[in-house]
């Protein structure tokens, strides 16, 4: 455990001791820090009331005020070894930025945060902190961890509202006169682009759709990640000499090898796992059955909730069933509510405890009136005249733990029933796009994803990859972590003396 010996920590004790409540419990000797472990709960973040928010697409969580943020930062023990940082895929210096908040030096806190994280306003909103930085927080052992995600969001939002001239500009390394192509503008691509431009490369991002952001634009709804946040983050990258090419489907319009021939020194592939999985059950192609990708794309990217002001329609179901238990399922269910559904049901084959979604999203969904049907697996979409009328569900029970550590659901013989529905949204994951083979001529693994080394290098030494196209469906921050580490590896490759590079290239 940590020792209380650094100057910085000693200094902090003095500044903040007076603010500690007088009636704290005795410090357990296991946590010898300057701060007493706080059993006071974390500070709640204000939300838009559930009954209000289900009829609009505005952001649900409203963020901390300065006072709340400072009070929450005060809960931090400032552990010397900062176990929280080990839980962060991009290794944000959490200890130091919280310390800066305690010192009331917000510009410094923002600078520390942005040094490691290219998209803090996004991560503060969509990261599953409870299974990452907050999971390894010392306070989590005895009570509630420091709300690191909310503090991150607070800082990013505080920075956004500062006048342009005060916002600290990213300090770019001198231009290295080398060009890198980044394929895909989702979290992996944006993180790689940010890191490479910091390191002095000229980066061009290629995006197949008409607007940047990948899943951040088409997948995550407005009420969880407002579009202006994403636009700001993209704009910051543009100012850091990153060029964005929209409507550029790499694979058919040019392959990665052609980009290398055209003069790019390296390519990073972050195209995501862009092919929705379907249930492979009868009736899944009836009208009214959507993949979560289609449902969310219509609403988020194409603004179907503003039809006919925007041109793309979406079916506004009255009884909606969403299949799945992840974040995407929560997003789809909550979107359906906001489109005016009378009843939205989540059917999940395990129980709430095993749901992979962020806890906050599940809580928000339930608050808003989404009904959970646990231990239910879809058997058949039933319909009439080409349209969905219901979903036949198989009752499940939990058996032994499987390879993922979660208890495997097994069917209960003979227990089936039809749940009425006019809209069914399947949110059961994604697969690699078959177009991947045209993107680059590199090795693909047995699941159809790109096969890469530890640093993201593919079988072509100048082509790197990261994010869902390597790992299969995962989180935004994991993709960002992969984009970032690949960017570092690209920098190493291109900075290496020739002999070494050549050895590595062969």
């Amino acid at each position, binding site marked *: 455990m940590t020792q209380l010996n650094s100057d910085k920590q000693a200094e902090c004790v003095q500044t903040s001791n007076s603010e500690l409540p007088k009636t704290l419990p005795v410090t357990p000797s296991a946590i010898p820090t300057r701060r007493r472990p706080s059993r006071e709960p974390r500070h709640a973040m204000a939300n838009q009331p559930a009954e209000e928010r289900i009829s609009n697409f505005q952001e649900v969580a409203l963020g901390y005020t300065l006072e709340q943020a400072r009070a929450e930062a005060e809960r931090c023990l400032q552990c010397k070894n900062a176990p929280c940082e080990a839980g962060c895929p991009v290794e944000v210096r959490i200890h130091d930025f919280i310390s800066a908040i305690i010192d009331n030096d917000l510009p410094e806190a923002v600078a520390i945060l942005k040094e490691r994280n290219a998209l803090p306003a996004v991560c503060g909103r969509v990261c599953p902190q409870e299974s990452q930085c907050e999971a390894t927080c010392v306070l989590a052992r005895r009570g509630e961890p420091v709300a690191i995600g909310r503090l991150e969001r607070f800082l990013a939002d505080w920075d956004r509202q500062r006048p342009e001239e005060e916002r600290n500009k990213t300090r770019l390394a001198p231009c290295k006169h080398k060009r890198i192509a980044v394929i895909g503008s989702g979290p992996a691509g944006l993180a790689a682009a940010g890191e490479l431009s910091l390191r002095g490369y000229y980066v061009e991002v290629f995006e197949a759709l008409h607007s940047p952001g990948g899943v951040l634009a088409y997948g995550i709804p407005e009420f969880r990640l407002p579009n202006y946040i994403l636009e700001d983050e993209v704009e910051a990258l543009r100012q850091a000499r990153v060029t964005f090419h929209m409507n550029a489907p790499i694979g058919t319009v040019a*392959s990665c090898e052609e980009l290398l021939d055209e003069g790019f020194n390296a390519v990073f592939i972050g195209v995501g796992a862009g092919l929705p999985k379907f249930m492979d059950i009868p009736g899944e192609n009836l009208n009214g059955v959507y993949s979560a990708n289609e449902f969310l794309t219509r609403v988020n990217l194409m603004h179907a909730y503003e039809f006919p002001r925007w041109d793309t329609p979406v079916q*506004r179901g009255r009884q909606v069933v969403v299949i799945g238990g992840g974040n995407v399922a929560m997003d789809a269910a909550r979107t359906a509510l906001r489109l005016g559904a009378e009843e939205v049901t989540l059917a999940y084959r395990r129980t709430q405890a095993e749901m992979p979604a962020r806890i906050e999203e599940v809580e928000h969904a339930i608050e808003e009136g989404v009904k959970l049907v646990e231990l239910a697996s879809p058997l058949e979409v039933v319909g009439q005249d080409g349209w969905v009328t219901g979903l036949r569900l198989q009752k499940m029970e939990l058996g032994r733990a499987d390879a993922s550590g979660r208890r495997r659901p097994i069917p209960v013989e003979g227990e089936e029933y039809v749940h009425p529905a006019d809209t069914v949204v399947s949110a059961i994951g994604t697969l690699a796009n078959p177009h991947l083979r045209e993107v680059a001529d590199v090795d693909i693994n047995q699941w159809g994803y790109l096969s890469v080394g530890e640093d993201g290098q593919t079988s072509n030494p100048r082509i790197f990859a990261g994010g869902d196209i390597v790992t299969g469906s995962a989180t935004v921050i994991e993709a960002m972590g992969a984009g970032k580490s690949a960017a570092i590896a690209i920098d190493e490759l291109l900075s290496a003396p020739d002999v070494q590079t050549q050895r590595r290239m062969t």
Partner: protein
Amino acid sequence: MNEIIEKRMLSEGVIQLTVYEPRIAAKCQAGQFFMLRVTDRGERVPFTFSDWSREEGWIRFIFMVVGKTTSLLSELAAGDYIKDLAGPLGRPSLRSHDTRRPSWGNDFEGLQQGGSVVVVGGGVGTAVAFPVARALCEEGYQVHVITGARTAELLILEEELRALPLASLSIMTDDGSAGSKGLVTAPLKELCSSRSVSHAIIVGPAIMMKFAAGTALDAGVPATVSLNPLMIDGTGMCGACRVSIDGATKFACVDGPDFSAASVDWAELMSRQRSYIDDERESHAAHQRHVQEREHENCDCFDESSLWARGFKKGGWAT
């Protein structure tokens, strides 16, 4: 990029646009398509290439004005820009068109190199059939073409087709105002039953493809069709374009758009094509009102928020 360099009215409501887009023109192949968006709030809609010039850097497509997006497109003139244009997408019709990936493109079942094939284009589908027929000619196949339309005015690309070294060209109109009177299935049946072709490639509206493919298959000739379901992104991401092929779910955008006709679930395709018909009509009608109201621009009587307000009331979800 995306500049319209030529606009031609081929007939009432049928328009051909030529767009300067050298990156796409350098790569597109017969049977592939692209996605476009006309305005900031516009839908993404797929169109198939009807022609292109790699040297001059343009692509060309033909469409019939049926809804809001095609109305907006028809209002553009040479010199205007199309907001967004992404492609080429989908697999080329001919496997030989891709040297990079041997798995990409189709084998035409039963068709030997240099063999005899019939290409059938119905209505605006002829715009898609033309580059396929031209590519097959270039590859040394004996190509028969059948093109059909409701009336003589709606026949397209007749000159271009006549310029190809075709084995035969049959022109059919429903009313007999050009070529022979009748449906494309009549000459198709003749060609197929006389065993003068070993494969049929059919492009047009779903109902026409269904019946034409049925004619070929009944005569024992395998057929390929180019499916046209609704699409949103066109890159495989959303699955709106899924079709049942031999009972398995496939995506027309990345697995197609060409499929073996015998495997297609036509009823499902046509049902899915119609799934937004009411919304499409509403959107088109609102646009037409908008156009009428825009004519009153100078009298200041048009308020854009009126459409917005109507949308709100219909959905009933917002205050």
